[in-house]
């Protein structure tokens, strides 16, 4: 009989192997995260939820504390497999929060049935001990709440797009950087609803994802212009609004954008052009970093220079950072699946989705 407390690190793998189905799913997600096979934040988030659901439905646990330790251990392994993919950690923490909430609700129900006096006297008790209590109906409650979370993720683009017409006005010139599914869907939605506007896309060298973006927007009938990244400031005077894509929203209200995002935001600030970020709130991460390097990824420099050509410049280094940190004071508005929010309001959303004790998954 195995212990119902999940071990950490390497032992986790052995512990999970008791349940071959879950173990296979776990291994394959870990591998695809490590090899960066899953493209995009949303699929990552969805797959993480699927796996955690399977783990919760299969593994042995009786109390909320046990369940949380299983989720934390599995979650930690997933986060370690791809630390730069912050949504994985977000989803794990979100599920931990769901477990806490459901446990609290169920416990309250049980207490209410047993009688009020004891409940009100013990509300000063340590929360840690309470999680040890076994309450009936926790499993179904948690599964239902996770189902809602999945529904939220399924609808994330629809919800954001509902706001498209509110934020894109007729004959506006909008500048965006690189390619982002969210920004693309948002702009296409506005065009589909017969709003006439112009989009300028910074090509986002060296991977020139911006050109792909422009192609897709032009195909949707939007008047699209491609500029080089270095022309962002030159063109800014004509721009009415900057739409920034977002890889992660971090807890101080800043965001991690594709490389070049910070530059565009600074140029916009200089000319008082509003900077708006379009994103789903599943990208809101309870992490703080002020360091440009902390969440950055250095990609292969082959996009900058062919390997053969490096012989011509043996002394030079080539760097290809993938992201930028844009500080909160440069962003005017976040358009999310729960509506528009100002940067200083994000801390509040953080409190609605995550529990601060879960910020570390260790």
């Amino acid at each position, binding site marked *: 009989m195995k212990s119902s407390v999940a071990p950490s690190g390497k032992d986790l793998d052995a512990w999970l192997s008791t349940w071959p189905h879950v173990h296979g799913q776990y291994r394959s997600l870990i591998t695809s995260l490590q090899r960066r096979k899953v493209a995009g934040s949303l699929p990552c988030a969805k797959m993480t939820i699927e796996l955690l659901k399977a783990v919760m439905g299969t593994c042995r646990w009786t109390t909320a504390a046990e369940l949380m330790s299983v989720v934390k251990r599995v979650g930690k392994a997933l986060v370690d497999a791809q630390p730069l993919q912050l949504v994985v950690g977000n989803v794990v923490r979100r599920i931990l929060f769901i477990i806490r909430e459901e446990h609290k609700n169920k416990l309250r129900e049980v207490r209410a049935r047993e009688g009020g006096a004891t409940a009100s006297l013990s509300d*000063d008790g340590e929360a840690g001990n309470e999680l040890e209590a076994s309450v009936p109906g926790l499993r179904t409650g948690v599964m239902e709440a996770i189902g809602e979370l999945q529904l939220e993720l399924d609808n994330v683009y629809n919800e954001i797009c509902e706001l498209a017409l509110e934020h894109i006005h007729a004959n506006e010139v909008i500048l965006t950087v690189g390619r982002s599914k969210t920004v693309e869907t948002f702009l296409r939605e506005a065009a589909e609803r017969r709003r006439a506007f112009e989009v300028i896309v910074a090509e986002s060298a060296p991977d020139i994802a911006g050109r792909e973006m422009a192609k897709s927007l032009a195909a949707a009938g939007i008047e699209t212009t491609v500029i080089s990244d270095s022309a962002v400031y030159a063109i800014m005077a004509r721009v009415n609004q900057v739409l920034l894509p977002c890889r992660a929203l971090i807890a*101080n209200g800043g965001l991690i954008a594709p490389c070049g995002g910070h530059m565009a935001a600074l140029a916009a600030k200089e000319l008082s052009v509003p900077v708006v970020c379009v994103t789903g709130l599943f990208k809101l991460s309870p992490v703080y970093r002020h360091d440009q390097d902390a969440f950055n990824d250095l990609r292969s420099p082959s996009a900058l220079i062919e390997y053969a050509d490096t012989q011509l410049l043996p002394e030079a280094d080539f760097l290809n950072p993938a992201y930028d940190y844009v500080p909160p004071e440069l962003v005017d508005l976040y358009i999310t699946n729960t509506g528009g929010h100002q940067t200083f309001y994000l801390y509040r959303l953080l409190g609605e989705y995550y529990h*601060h004790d879960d910020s570390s998954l260790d």
Partner: protein
Amino acid sequence: MPAHMPSVLFAYSYHSDALSYSLPCTIYFDTANAPVMEAALEPSIPPSNLPSHSSAPSSDDPLLSVFRSHLEKNVPVPIAGVQTLLHVMSSSRAVTIMGIQNDLKAATSELIEYERRISGGRASISFRACVELFFRYATRKNDDVPDFETLNKLFIARGHHFVANALKSRLGIAELGHSFVQDGMMILTHGRSEVVTGVLIRAAQSNKNFTVMVTEGRPEGSGFKAAERLTEAGIPVTVILDSAAAYFMERVDIVLLGAEGVVESGGIVNKIGTCQLAMVAKLYNKPLYVAAESYKFARLYPLTQADLEDNVDNDVEKPLFPPLLTGIEGGTATGKVEEGEGRHRQERGSSGNLLGKNTIFDSGPGVAAMTTKNPSCDYTPAQYISLLFTDLGILTPAAVSDELIKLYQ
């Protein structure tokens, strides 16, 4: 000596350890106005340092001796106050809630008055806020408790719970805040804060290599004390003049400060000089973090510096040049304050100038005509603060008012 002149002058130490480097605020007593001298005693001062006429009935008031015994254990002032109030609750002879509330109110004002006398009122914001929170937390209504005895016991139990949580908060803040300190950083701090020292020591314990720059924290030189603590923990420390903050700011990576009080706007009340330091940090785009326990959250909304005067006893009449400076040579903390108590005494000239005699200036004819001002705290607006590290989590300044509403619900 004329009757209106302050006749008792001596230095006291606000914190009980390490008296050697600095002599915090020198305070004056006018014996005519304050005939009872028990307040003048601070437990940490060795008997030899005490002024001779303070042999007044110091331990007569049991309330203050309880307060002092808690302070001696290096407990933060507001928490020591709450512990004293708990003592009042358990020893009170009151038999009604109203009675005990009156006892507590009287004790609170006595403690605040005492605190104001021993530390110039710098802790008064956090003191009041903490006591207020304690009341809210401990004396919540409970309709289903049968009698007063049980209720009082429940209140006391909750109070102890409150104190236990508050005492744990520094550890929690260190745990949250230390990850902001990264290898190779230069961290600037101002004056002395136990919470900040805690964060930095915790960071050093997790094997991070960083250097700390501490402003000396005039007039009482609290920065030297902070520097001493950090040096003991093996952290490289440089002490700079308060006025050198702008000079060094370009080399600094983050600014980490404590607070005497956190106000509703998310701004802070802290040791004098914090505001200008924060302004310089903003100018250089350096993140400024504040580490403070949530019991320092106060329901105040200062708009200007002048608004502080209602809430902090910003005793502007302290001397600008305490004897500290005479003991320090070459700008390092190696010097000790020489000589005995005589050296620490300050005398206020008949014209009311506060420069003091044994300081950089000796009173000359010009000095007598000068006026000086020396407030102990200033208000730093929220716009200069990046984040606050608290036991409620890491907060943006905007989150403070939210938390305050929750705390006082």
